[in-house]
């Protein structure tokens, strides 16, 4: 097996512009050090209807209220401000921004334990037609390759994604390579499990990294 840069079509070029927006990096950077509660704040705000920060402060008093420790409140305020900037981009754009944030967050956390993190890469196998869609994030360390597909919500879990991940794992196994495949979802583990429980696509060997445990990406041992 081998990794390869994905060819860029028109959609990918547009999306690359969003991925490169400093706002994406800012939100992802704040989320990389966020508590679980702050991750729920980010998900709610970037999914939200209102863009008035006062309303969100009332919804999350334990994070943004006067009783919250000053340092933690400052971090939560920075996250709120950044997420509101995403929300203010409008319904069409915010969907792309949210996806880009999850990818960037995943790459940042993985980079804490590996220098071999790449984005938008395909996995090729001799004699096997290449998949159309690249993987969002890969770790291309010798002997311990990993591929990650990133989703904003549990609804993004579908048969196509699961099949592509499992096919890559199976083809790698045929090449005697243990490819770690995972789906990273910025949503509740419980919701993801409900989604997976109805899927007929094989996913027994596909790891799930959900919102509550996303920091595990930075830990060695997968």
């Amino acid at each position, binding site marked *: 097996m081998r990794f390869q840069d994905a060819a860029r079509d028109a959609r990918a070029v547009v999306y690359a512009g969003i991925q490169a927006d400093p706002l994406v990096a800012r939100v992802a950077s704040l989320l990389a*050090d*966020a*508590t*679980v*509660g*702050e991750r*729920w704040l980010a*998900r*709610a705000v970037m*999914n*939200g*209807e*209102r863009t008035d920060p006062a*309303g969100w402060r*009332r*919804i*999350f*008093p*334990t*994070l943004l*209220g006067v*009783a919250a*420790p000053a340092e*933690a409140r400052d971090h939560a305020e920075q996250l709120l401000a950044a997420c509101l900037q995403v929300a203010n981009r409008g319904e069409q754009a915010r969907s792309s921004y949210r996806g880009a944030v999850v990818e960037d967050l995943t790459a940042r956390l993985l980079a804490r334990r590996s220098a071999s993190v790449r984005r938008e890469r395909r996995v090729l196998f001799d004699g096997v037609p290449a998949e159309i869609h690249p993987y969002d994030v890969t770790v291309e360390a010798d002997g311990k390759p990993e591929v990650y597909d990133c989703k904003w*919500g*549990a*609804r993004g879990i579908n048969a196509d994604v699961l099949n592509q991940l499992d096919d890559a794992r199976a083809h790698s196994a045929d090449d005697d390579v243990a490819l770690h495949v*995972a789906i990273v979802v910025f*949503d*509740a*583990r*419980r*919701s*993801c*499990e*409900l*989604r*997976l*429980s*109805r899927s007929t696509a094989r*996913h*027994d*060997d*596909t*790891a*799930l*990294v959900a919102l*509550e*445990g996303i920091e*595990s990406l930075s830990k060695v041992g*997968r």
Partner: protein
Amino acid sequence: MTCGGKHGSLLQGRIGYAWGVTERAQVAERAAVAYEALAELAETVEDEWQYVTDLVDAYLPSIRALGTTPAGGAGSISPEAEAAVDESIAEIELIADPHKAIDWLSTFPHVIALALGGDVDAPAAAEEPGGAAATGDSPPEPDEYSPFRVLRGGR
């Protein structure tokens, strides 16, 4: 679906109040009623009917359980917590897009759990354990999920 209906739940809440249920239970019930209304909007996405049903079956009892299993044993909650729940309800009442409603069916229970203190990730006491767990990485220990741990300073 097993939602039961908005008006039925309102009536249930009022009867409960008349019999002296806690303030906490009333607030949780308001959240549950709003959740049911959100589900009614979400289930108009026909392709996602099963997922919506699964979410409601899982989370609605858990939201109600937040009103009956206070972490500290007290029945009352702070004004800030009650305001947080009511603001959250106001937020989801603004949603008109059924696709966004589906997203919030997964988010809203956790926002309410943060406000009231508690956990909506485990089946409520009356629920049967069920649903296939995703395989791969092991789920964190229960306390690793807990918003309380986070709010106590764990990052």
